[in-house]
Every structure is written in structure tokens, then in C-alpha cells.
């Protein structure tokens, strides 16, 4: 049964992708219906998987030779991410009905989204490292194609290529790690790696651990690979909500959580993970404070929140990180979709041209503020529970500097998101574009997410139980929801953090009175807007690559005989190495 459901979760979106594509943009209504039907069906299949959790391989597809067996497995981690991918995927598709109305090439749009949903489900449900890498790259490819969906806009094309190249660099780490695992264990099976990690040579394990960390950082837009995510905001808003907030960027965190038992013993690895998380969270929060584009603000906030999850893994809080992943997927998808509704109505993404939109779009205001409260970590919303759990883990098991900086980030988070809410919905109107509230299909997508932002904190108990039952290599204990929530409420760290959050809010509220203090920090503005020099670094890499390529051009003479001679020399060198080495 479980194997059928796994196949359906991956196969249904892909089947839908083919069908939508076959329509050839002749009947947009049919395309809408097909996309919604197939994504909802995949969501149902993923939800049904919850009833069949297992730590054993469900089915294997023998491929043979060096490719090993392609195996699938539905354990707690996989089911959680598959449900998020298909569930939020369905809502994003529903939202697109209104958001993308009248666009040409709906077929390309929907098939890429459906293709992505299937690949994302495959990525988290497979238990073969090689197959995981293949799905990993398919999601990157879909992300690239959807960022550049408006391919007559040079900014969109540039953003897509940037995302593809940077995630590709990290992907090499995953491929290298997978090949290394195969060469030392003779299998791509993830459970084999987790079981036998301590028998591997230290050097090989360290290479794998840091290769996977690079892959995760690139995919989850963490320091120093974070620069692609803000530029990916050229994608249509539902795509940003689905791929660049709720699912694909979580793949990095998923990877770290999945392999944590194998790598926790590698010297320096946990510290490196904490460092990556803390630097990303803090730096992105500062950049969000100075952002002047609504979607870029949310993108920086995503980097910052993913930093929280990475930090949680670094201090050993696997459950806390995945709990926050769930909360974040829900409230950030909500924020992005609500931002999409705002952008659809206001016709601009610039925060400076918004303001005073609240009275014309009351429903969007309510859901956006719900998401913002959850993001800031205000009590009883889901972000509160999961963020406090992370901070509690950090205080108990992590370094003090990490905890202090994350606490500061919590305050900054509250400040930047309320600056955003204020600039969009309150104050005086700064443009005269005719406004409209969220349309019906948009509301169908927004309300469930808003309700979920309030309630998913209650899922902590069942989620913990699912994890403890199906992840034999992770050292997890199952607590009831009640126990977890009371534990959070009774921890002094919680009230310290909530105090900092309230201070962040107050800092925004009393910004006029505090202006002299803020003026002291204004020097941060200009480096923050230039992403602290990382864009210059990227440009330097591109320029030097082009310079080297120009130099190497001279070796391409265009004479066939030279090429044959080159092949011969290469052959001789390889034979010499083989003779010498073996």
C-alpha cells in the first residue's frame, strides 16, 4: 500500500504535467482544472501516506551496475516534506488560477510547477543517494525555468541563470558525497551510510560531511551562497511561495537533518553548521530591514528563517528544526501568496509605492498580518512554538555566542516584518492604481494557510511521535503536544525571547522617538543594500571565469589534426597514469 501511495505522490503530478502540456494552451480553463485536479490528488496521496509510516524500504527498482538500486521509503521526515510539497503545491496552483489569468503559455507554467511538485516529493521519499541527487537537480532545473518564466525580461533570465549556477556548485558537493559513499560502502542506500558511518575512514567522512553542508547551503540559500534567492524573486508570486519559501529551499535543511546521525561526530562539522545558520540568519535579517521591495524583503526573511533551522541542526535539535520547517512553510507561503495578491492589485513590488492599501484589501491585510505575527514569533501562532523550541535547544546545547546572536535576530525579525506591514497596508497612499481585494481562487488558497498558521503548533506531538517511530538512527524521544507546549511555556528562555521580540516591535513603533539611536546604525544601510559585498564577489567570479575562458580560446585552433593529436596525447597520459599507478 505504502509503495503505491509513494508512486502516486510522485507520479500524479508528473502525469498532470504531461497532460497540461499536451493541451498546448488552447483551453486555459481545462489547463486550470487539470493542474488543480492532479496537484490535489497528489496531496491526497501524500496525506494518506501518514497512515503508513515505516523505517523499512517500501520498494526497490533494480537499475544495476554502478547505479545500484533505486529505493523508496516513507519515514517521518519524508512524509512531512512530501505533505508540505504537495499540500502547499496544490494551494499555489489554486492561487495561480486568478494570479496567472490571461497569461500566455499557461501550459509551460503549470507543467513546470507539477513537474517540480513530483520531483520534490521524490527527493524526500527516496532512500537512494544517487536518485536523491537526480531529483535534487530536477528541482533546481524547474526552479530555474520558473524564475525565468517571463523569458522576455532580462532580469528574470539573469536571476534564473544565477540560481541555477549557484545551486549547481553546491549540487557537486552532494554528487561527490554520494559517489564517495558508494566507493566506500558499495551502496547508495542512505540507511547503510547512517548505520556504518563510524566504520568509514575519518577523511572520507569529513569530505562527505562538508560536501553535503555546501550542497545544503547552496540549496537553502545560506551564507555564503545566499545571493541567488533575492534575485529569484522575478518569478511569479505563487512560484516564489511554493519553491522559494515552502519547499525547494527546505531541501538543504532536510539533507542536513537526514544525515545528522552520520556526521555529528565529524570534528568541526557541528560548529560549521551553527556558524552558517547564525551568519545567514543575522545578515539576512539586517538586509531585510533595509529592503525596498516587498518580495525581496520576504526573500531575505526566508534566508533568515532557514538560518534558524540550520542553526537548530547544528545544536542537535533535529525535531525543532523540522517543526520550524513546517511552521515556516505554512506562514511564509501565506506571506508570499498574500504579497502576490497585493502585487497583483497594486501593480508594483516597490514598498515605496505602496502604503495605505489596507482599507481597500481588508482580507489580504488580515491574512498577511497573521503570517507576519507567526513570523515574528508572537504567542499561540505556529512560529512562536517552533522558534522558541529552537532557541531553547540552542541555549541548552549550543555555544553562547550563537544563542545571543539568534536572540538578536528574533528582535530584528519582528522589526523588519512590521516595517513591511506598515509600508504596505498603513500610512497614506502613494499611487493611484485601482485596487481590488483578493479574488475567489486566491482566497481559497489564503484562508487555509492563515488558519494553519494559527494551528500547526498543535501538531508537534504527533509529528514527534512519527519521527521517533520511524527514524531509528536519530536519537529522538516522543512527547505529547501538551508536554512540548508546556515545556516551551515554562522555559525562561521563551519569555526572554518573547521580550526581545516585543522590543523589536517597540523599536518599530517608537521609531520617531528612537530616531537618534537609529541614525547611529544607518551606516549599515549601504552595505546591507549591496548584500555586504557578496554581489561584488559574484561579479568578480564571473569576470575571472570569462577571462580564463578567453585565454583558453586560443587552444581551439579549429584544425582537425590538432584535435586528433590532442586526443592521442590524452590517451597516452591516461595509459601512463594507469601503468604507473596500478
Amino acid at each position: 500500500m505504502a509503495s503505491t501511495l509513494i508512486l502516486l505522490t510522485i507520479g500524479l503530478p508528473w502525469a498532470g504535467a504531461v497532460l497540461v502540456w499536451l493541451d498546448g494552451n488552447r483551453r486555459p480553463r481545462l489547463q486550470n482544472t487539470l493542474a488543480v485536479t492532479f496537484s490535489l490528488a497528489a496531496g491526497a496521496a501524500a496525506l494518506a501516506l501518514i497512515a503508513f509510516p515505516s523505517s523499512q524500504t517500501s520498494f526497490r527498482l533494480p537499475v544495476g551496475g554502478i547505479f545500484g538500486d533505486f529505493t523508496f521509503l516513507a519515514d517521518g521526515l519524508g512524509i512531512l516534506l512530501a505533505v508540505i510539497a504537495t499540500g502547499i503545491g496544490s494551494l499555489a496552483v489554486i492561487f495561480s488560477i486568478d494570479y496567472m489569468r490571461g497569461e500566455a503559455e499557461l501550459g509551460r507554467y503549470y507543467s513546470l510547477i507539477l513537474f517540480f511538485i513530483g520531483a520534490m516529493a521524490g527527493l524526500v521519499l527516496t532512500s537512494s543517494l544517487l536518485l536523491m541527487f537526480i531529483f535534487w537537480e530536477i528541482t533546481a532545473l524547474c526552479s530555474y525555468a520558473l524564475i525565468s518564466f517571463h523569458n522576455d525580461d532580462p532580469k528574470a533570465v539573469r536571476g534564473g541563470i544565477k540560481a541555477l549556477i549557484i545551486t549547481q556548485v553546491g549540487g557537486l558537493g552532494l554528487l561527490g558525497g554520494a559517489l564517495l559513499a558508494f566507493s566506500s560502502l558499495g551502496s547508495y542506500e542512505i540507511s547503510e551510510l547512517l548505520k556504518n558511518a563510524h566504520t568509514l575512514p575519518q577523511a572520507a567522512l569529513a569530505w562527505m560531511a562538508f560536501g553535503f553542508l555546501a550542497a545544503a547551503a547552496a540549496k537553502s540559500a545560506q551564507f555564503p551562497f545566499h545571493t541567488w534567492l533575492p534575485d529569484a524573486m522575478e518569478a511569479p508570486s505563487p512560484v516564489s511561495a511554493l519553491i522559494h519559501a515552502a519547499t525547494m529551499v527546505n531541501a538543504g535543511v532536510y539533507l542536513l537533518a537526514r544525515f545528522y546521525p552520520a556526521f555529528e561526530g565529524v570534528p568541526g562539522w557541528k560548529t560549521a553548521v551553527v556558524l552558517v545558520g547564525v551568519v545567514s540568519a543575522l545578515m539576512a535579517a539586517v538586509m531585510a530591514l533595509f529592503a525596498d521591495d516587498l518580495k525581496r524583503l520576504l526573500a531575505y526573511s526566508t534566508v533568515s528563517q532557514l538560518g534558524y533551522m540550520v542553526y537548530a541542526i547544528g545544536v542537535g535539535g533535529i525535531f525543532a528544526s523540522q517543526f520550524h520547517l513546517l511552521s515556516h512553510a505554512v506562514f511564509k507561503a501565506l506571506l508570499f501568496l498574500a504579497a502576490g495578491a497585493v502585487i497583483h492589485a497594486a501593480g508594483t513590488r516597490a514598498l515605496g509605492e505602496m502604503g495605505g492599501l489596507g482599507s481597500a484589501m481588508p482580507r489580504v491585510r488580515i491574512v498577511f498580518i497573521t503570517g507576519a505575527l507567526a513570523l515574528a514569533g508572537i504567542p499561540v501562532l505556529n512560529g512562536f512554538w517552533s522558534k522558541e523550541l529552537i532557541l531553547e535547544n540552542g541555549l541548552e546545547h549550543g555555544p553562547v555566542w550563537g544563542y545571543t546572536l539568534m536572540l538578536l535576530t528574533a528582535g530584528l525579525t519582528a522589526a523588519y516584518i512590521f516595517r513591511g506591514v506598515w509600508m504596505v497596508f498603513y500610512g497614506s497612499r502613494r499611487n493611484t492604481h485601482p485596487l481590488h481585494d483578493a479574488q475567489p481562487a486566491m482566497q481559497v488558497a489564503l484562508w487555509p494557510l492563515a488558519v494553519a498558521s494559527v494551528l500547526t503548533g498543535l501538531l508537534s506531538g504527533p509529528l514527534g511521535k512519527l519521527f521517533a517511530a520511524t527514524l531509528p538512527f536519530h536519537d529522538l524521544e516522543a512527547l505529547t503536544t501538551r508536554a512540548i507546549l508546556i515545556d516551551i511555556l515554562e522555559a525562561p528562555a521563551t519569555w526572554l525571547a518573547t521580550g526581545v521580540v516585543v522590543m523589536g516591535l517597540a523599536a518599530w513603533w517608537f521609531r520617531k522617538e528612537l530616531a537618534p539611536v537609529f541614525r547611529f546604525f544607518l551606516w549599515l544601510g549601504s552595505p546591507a543594500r549591496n548584500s555586504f559585498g557578496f554581489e561584488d564577489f559574484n561579479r568578480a567570479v564571473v569576470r575571472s571565469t570569462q577571462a580564463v575562458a578567453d585565454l583558453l580560446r586560443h587552444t581551439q585552433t579549429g584544425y582537425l589534426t590538432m584535435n586528433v593529436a590532442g586526443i592521442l596525447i590524452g590517451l597516452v597520459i591516461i595509459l601512463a597514469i594507469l601503468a604507473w599507478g596500478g
Partner: protein
Amino acid sequence: MTLSMPSILLVGIFSLFGVGLYGLLAVRNLIKVIVALQVVVKAVLLALVLAGNLRGQVPLAQSLGLTVLVADTVVAVIGLALAVQVRRCLGTLDLHALASLRR
């Protein structure tokens, strides 16, 4: 040293391969290059059959050989078709004239 049948064949194969390789490196006429390529591939084909014979896997070697033969024919045909187009576009079959495509 006694000359066994396989070693005689091996010498033949290597000479054939060398002739083809020399052609690839030295000849400038595109048609002749394609002929040289064919000679190289035929040498490899013979080596394949010989290896199959020595290892006692004659059927496997034969089926692989046939596959190579078919694929190689396609290569030759496409190469010749390209040569015709090169002649049409550049007015010559000289390989060095092809370097003008680089710019």
C-alpha cells in the same frame, strides 16, 4: 620466439590502426579523413573479434562487432553528407579551410 596466429593478427591490427591514425593526423582532404577514420574503426573491430575468440566468447564478440559495424556505417554516411555541405559552402574540402568556422 614462435609466431602464433593471434600475435600475427595483433601485429596486423596495430599496423592497420597506425595507418588510420597516420591518416587522421596527416591528411587534409576531408574525404580521405573519413576513409582514415573507417580504417581505425575497422582495426578496433578486428581487435574486438580477436579478443572474443581468445576469451571463448565468440557470439558476444560477433554481436558487439555487428553493432559497431552498423553504428560506424551511420558515422561514415553522416560524415560524407557533411563533406558535401562543406564543399558546397566553402568551395573546398581542405580541412584548414574549416578553421574559418571558428571565428
